[in-house]
């Protein structure tokens, strides 16, 4: 019963000052709307930019790096064991880029439960022969099916069909930049030469656009078998294994473990793409800062309006106190007013924020660099809505607390005598 009385009085006070109340609520609504839309948009963009790199990057790469042996012969000589070895100008020996024993590694990885998938790869340094000019390039020999499953390969094939790589023998999907330079179209035949092998004619079955122009000028894709042919190697020759894990955060430790276990080099995604992580977190930080600033500004609006309301309602406060309402009852009344403004203003803000996100989500955003994107990206993560809701209640509570305390402390005698 009493729980109904306080909101009842709060409601009456609010409706008596309806316009001010609505202005205060509109302030909260505006800031929550902007908060939700801004964070959704910013993080949508973040995810987009991250995916540009991270979706296509393996969590762990296993390969053989060209580097000098870490153990030089002199350190194995027992006679000089305790001496300091001065060695300079060390050169790598005749190492092969091949990943040794790749078949055994593959089957070991398939048995590992942490691994979501493995896509083998052969990289070949080639020259694209365009009339009299040779242009350097890289042909990645890939397993199309795995590459599609793990790295969404087909998303970036803007014309032609990715699966043709396996179905058409001696076929290639050219990077957009490379294709433009060669004036090559689907169905054309191009010539490539590897550093070690003989020239080979390849049929263009598609065009590939990664979104990173520099990459598309050099990179092309072929099947593993075709690439092995370019290099003149047998069909167990692999240069790299690309691994996707179930939990990306374990990549650094897993990479280290595999490097020791398989005696090869490894690289994890965090090390390879550290700069993207930093960029994302800075962008999120900025959008949170802007959003929270908006909320605090609207909090001051509520503070002002409640202060004004309390000043105007001195008589009411005095009567309530004279007829038996305690200071804490009066405080509660004004806190209920503040929280109602926060709650309903915030709720409207969440709805409008969602609508604004939908609108942004439908604005066309076409760029050559991002072939799979057609509208602005929005992240509809529930997290932002929850943060916004909590923040609107906390700021309105704080904004209401001080005026409410002032109201609870007002001395009715002063007001009644003051007339």
């Amino acid at each position: 019963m009493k729980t109904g009385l306080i909101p009842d009085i709060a409601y009456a006070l609010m409706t008596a000052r309806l316009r001010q109340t609505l202005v205060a609520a509109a302030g909260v609504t505006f800031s929550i709307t902007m908060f939700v839309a801004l964070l959704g948009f910013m993080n949508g963009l973040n995810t987009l930019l991250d995916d540009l790199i991270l979706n296509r990057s393996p969590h762990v790469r296993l390969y053989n790096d060209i580097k000098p042996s870490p153990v030089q012969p002199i350190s194995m000589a027992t006679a000089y064991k305790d001496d300091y070895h001065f060695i300079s100008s060390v050169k790598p020996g005749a190492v092969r880029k091949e990943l040794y024993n790749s078949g055994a590694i593959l089957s070991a990885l398939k048995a590992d439960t942490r691994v979501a998938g493995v896509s083998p790869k052969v990289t070949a340094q080639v020259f694209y022969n365009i009339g009299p000019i040779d242009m350097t390039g890289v042909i990645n020999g890939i397993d199309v099916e795995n590459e599609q499953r793990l790295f969404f390969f087909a998303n970036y094939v803007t014309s032609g069909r990715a699966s043709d790589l396996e179905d058409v023998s001696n076929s290639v999907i050219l990077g957009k930049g490379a294709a433009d330079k060669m004036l090559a179209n689907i169905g054309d035949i191009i010539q490539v030469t590897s550093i070690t092998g003989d020239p080979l004619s390849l049929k263009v079955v598609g065009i590939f656009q990664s979104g990173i122009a520099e990459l598309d000028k050099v990179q092309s894709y072929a099947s593993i078998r075709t690439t092995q042919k370019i290099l003149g190697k047998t069909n167990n020759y692999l240069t790299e294994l690309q691994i996707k894990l179930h939990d990306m955060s374990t990549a650094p430790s897993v990479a280290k473990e595999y490097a020791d276990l398989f005696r090869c080099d490894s690289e994890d995604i965090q090390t390879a793409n550290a700069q993207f992580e930093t960029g994302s977190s800075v962008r999120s930080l900025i959008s949170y800062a802007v959003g929270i600033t908006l909320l605090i500004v609207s909090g001051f609006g509520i503070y002002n309006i409640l202060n004004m309301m309390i000043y105007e309602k001195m008589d009411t406060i005095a009567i309530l106190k004279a007829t038996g309402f305690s200071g804490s009852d009066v405080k509660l009344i004004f806190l209920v007013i503040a929280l109602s403004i926060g709650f309903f203003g915030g709720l409207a803000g969440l709805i409008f924020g969602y609508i604004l996100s939908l609108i942004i989500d439908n604005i066309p955003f076409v760029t050559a660099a991002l072939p799979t994107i057609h509208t602005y990206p929005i992240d509809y993560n529930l997290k932002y809505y929850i943060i916004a809701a909590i923040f609107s209640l906390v700021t309105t509570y704080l904004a209401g607390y001080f005026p409410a305390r002032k109201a609870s402390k007002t001395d009715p005698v002063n007001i009644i005598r003051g007339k």
Partner: protein
Amino acid sequence: MDSNIVLKAQAIEKYFTDPEPFKVLDNVSFEILKGEFTSIVGKSGCGKSTLLYILSTMDTDYSGQLWIGGEDMKIKSEKELAAVRNEHIGFVFQFHYLLNEFSVLKNVILPGLKLQKLSPKDLEEKAMLHLKQLGIDSLAPKMAYKLSGGEKQRVAIARALINDPLIIMGDEPTGNLDHKNSEIVFDIFEQLSKEYGQSLLIVTHDDEFAARTGKTIIMEDGRIVQKN
């Protein structure tokens, strides 16, 4: 303590320090018995209102003792004093203090809703009964600010009565009314005292009014100079 004593004040003293220290109330002691209709008179500035605010528990900054309904007011917290005002004291101000945001009926039952002894429905019935006695039952659904001064004062009396208080206090409740309305309000007080045994303590400037009450306390410079 005699259960017939509704209010007992003993050696009440109060100082104001602003602008310079001076004693507004000096050794004020008296009792009000059940059903007694008491008036306080005195020159302007002699401390009548100040005394009434202390007796109504709104002002706690004084020395001396105060019992209401046999309970010591000095040892009560702010919240407990609010509860005492709610249940045991009905206050009628000189200016018609009603809540403009509410209807007449709601104004009357609000202290009852706070007390929670009766259901809202019973409170409304009771309030209508009082309003009828006061001749303003037709005004019940009206918003409070739409009433005339005399009507407002009668609503305030109905509000003061809603929780069956031990005592009704008034600070010049007729001070702002014309002669006719003053008569009406006085008649109501007299009736409450005579027919219902309601205790009343009313501050007034009107000697004619005071002469008609059961007992009159005359104050001068913060002291009681005569009780009869």
